[in-house]
């Protein structure tokens, strides 16, 4: 592994970590699409900044472009406040307009700008190690590593300093306001950090893929935990993991590094989406099926308790009466028998004493409108779940 390769991976990892932190809060605050808007609309800022500074890594350019990001947020909020259109429409109107201005600016000045539209979308991570920062004649590393590293350090220190405020205002805006934290300052602070990070990462991964690095790790982490600290750590780890693996995939395919990092991120999200222990699709589908059977079981037990007549309790009759499919009624009967709720004697179903107790309790809960208690009760009574 050459030095340049190592540096690329390092830059990619730092970018991923720097994006994951604001990304987590954006996802939690339901503002994920704002990051998309910012990443598009900083383009005119970058182009104008580039005319002035002639250097993609200059701090002035980053501030100027980040300022465009803030303008986007303010503009979106202003349009929304007029009540003429809904919030999402406001976002969708603002950023394409700003992005178009950026694209036109680039196209009109194509000759004297070392910026092309592909670089805007994809970044130039492969070339990042060649742009070195030279201090007093000594080479201290790639410029973009210093830029994004500084941004990461600032982000982390802000995170540590204002963790409590961020946490409260994210989960309970009203409480935060009544405790005296200004929601506006936290909101615009977060927006500023997101804008600055987007601009810093823009050089490495391009305008649109920044969005992937912000949202995907946070979304995957959100499916795995409900603890904010764990979520931050998980998001950062997912980001760094995808950055490094993505680099090697790109190396192997000889394709865009940013594109392959995103693809790896997509696969990571897909895996989590499918297999997350309690919130993944498989777990959710399984739980839904389980609950469906258990609800059927409860209905069935209530029916048994209501009827003493032998005719109503005949196995054959149940099919017609509760109008279940054959397979379904069989699985419900099996479950009830396994749990010792019923016993079947000569095709007549009756409740056992345990089944009777369960059903009476369930009725009590239903009458007193405490349906949620039934879930806990199931744990006490059931030997096997549906």
């Amino acid at each position: 592994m050459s030095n340049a390769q190592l540096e690329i991976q390092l830059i990619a990892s730092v970018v991923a970590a720097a994006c994951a932190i604001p990304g987590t809060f954006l996802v939690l605050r339901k503002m994920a699409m704002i990051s998309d808007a910012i990443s598009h609309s900083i383009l005119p800022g970058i182009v104008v900044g580039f005319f002035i500074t002639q250097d993609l890594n200059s701090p002035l350019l980053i501030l100027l472009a980040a300022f465009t990001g803030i303008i986007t947020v303010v503009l979106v909020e202003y349009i929304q406040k007029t009540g003429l259109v809904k919030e999402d429409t406001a976002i969708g109107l603002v950023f394409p307009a700003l992005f178009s201005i950026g694209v036109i600016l680039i196209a009109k000045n194509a000759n004297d700008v070392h910026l092309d539209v592909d670089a805007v979308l994809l970044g130039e991570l492969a070339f990042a190690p060649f742009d070195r920062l030279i201090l007093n004649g000594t080479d201290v590393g790639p410029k973009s590593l210093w830029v994004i590293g500084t941004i990461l350090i600032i982000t982390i220190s802000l995170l540590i300093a204002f963790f409590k405020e961020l946490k409260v205002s994210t989960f309970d805006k009203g409480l935060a306001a009544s405790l005296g934290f200004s929601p506006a300052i936290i909101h615009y602070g977060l927006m500023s950090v997101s804008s600055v990070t987007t601009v810093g990462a823009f050089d490495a991964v391009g305008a649109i893929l920044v969005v992937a690095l912000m949202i995907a790790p946070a979304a995957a982490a959100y499916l795995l935990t409900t603890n904010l600290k764990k979520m931050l750590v998980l998001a950062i780890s997912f980001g760094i993991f995808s950055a490094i693996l993505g680099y090697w995939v790109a190396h192997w395919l000889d394709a865009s590094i940013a594109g392959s990092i995103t693809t790896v991120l997509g696969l990571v999200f897909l895996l989590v989406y499918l297999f997350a222990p309690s919130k993944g699709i498989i777990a959710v589908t399984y739980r839904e099926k389980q609950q469906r059977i258990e609800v059927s079981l409860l209905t069935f037990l209530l029916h048994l308790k209501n009827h003493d007549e032998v005719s109503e309790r005949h196995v054959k009759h149940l099919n017609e009466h509760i109008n279940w499919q054959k397979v379904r009624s069989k699985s419900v009967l099996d479950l009830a028998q396994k749990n010792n709720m019923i016993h079947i004697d000569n095709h007549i179903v009756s409740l056992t004493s345990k089944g009777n107790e369960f059903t009476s309790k369930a009725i009590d809960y239903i009458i007193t409108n405490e349906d949620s208690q039934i879930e806990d009760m199931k744990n006490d009574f059931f030997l096997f779940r549906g």
Partner: protein
Amino acid sequence: MDITEYIQLVFTDYTLRTITLGTAILGAVTGMLGSFAVLRKQSLLGDAISHAALPGIAIAFLITGSKDSNTLLIGALISGLIGTFWIRGIVTKTHLKSDTALGLILSLFFGFGMLLLTFIQKQPNANQAGLDKYLFGQAATLVESDVWMMAIVTSICLIVLLIFWKEFKMLLFDADYTKTLGFNTKFIDILITSFIVLAIVLGLQTVGVVLMSAMLLAPAAAARQWTNSLAMMVFLAALFGAFAGVFGTAISASENNLSTGPIIVLVASVFVVFSFIFSPSRGLLFKQIRFIRNRRDLELNKTLAFMHQIAETHEDISHPHAVKLLNNFQGYTRSTLQKLVEKDYVQINGSMWNLTKIGFNTAANLYTKQQTKDE
């Protein structure tokens, strides 16, 4: 080149005619369907779908090896639909919110598409050049068959829209009611979403994946400001979209180095800004004017009420009082007094005023009955 010359050129020059016609049709169909997207609060869905279409284009090229735009657009359509339904899956099955789902699909699909595009570029296949026109669109590559294709799809959209008009409209404004009436809301929902995807895919070649969402939103958002009727809004949005296409093409043709897509988007945005400001019923300008007028009315009424209070204490309601009395009172200015005189509510003699009969009655009923408009 002046305008008449340009218009002549539009009718005689093949390329210019094709592009103008193409962008106009595109604008019309996206405006039409965009109205539904905006009203259904799915504005950003368009953005996600257009980005999600990119890997479809690349995969279609990898499989067939042809650059025929219809083949590629079918790929785009399929991957756009997959993206749409995955977004739905995420929102309904997990606790992730719709904005996260949109952002995820948008960026992940797009990143995957870019990976494939760069992968294709490295392939030893001479045919691969030019796929990246789908990023920002190149109206110049439109040929007559593309325009025909657009026209056909637009007419299909129009027919479906007319047939299912009632259902679409009802689903839009009261989904629950529609369901209770026995309509298959799922089917209608999928139908309209599929057509939105179709319209987006149709525009990829002209406007590109990145800016396509604006084509969907901007005409509809502009049209919304002028009317409260769905039919009128759809019609206006189609009109705005078509004009944005025509003007955008004209502007980009008049100068070098101006790509058509961004210009069309900017023209559409100008329409939006214009509508936001100048729409008579909802526009910001008239709203502000109404606001100021209301405030003035209120001041007038306050002055009148104050005068009424003073006049009440006298037997003779037209008993004169000094104008000085009114000083230090909030609603009073020289001009409000003048207005009251004009309305015959008040008479002024030198530095004294007195209420007239009409003025007294109006003031007495000021807060008890519905006012007829004062100005």
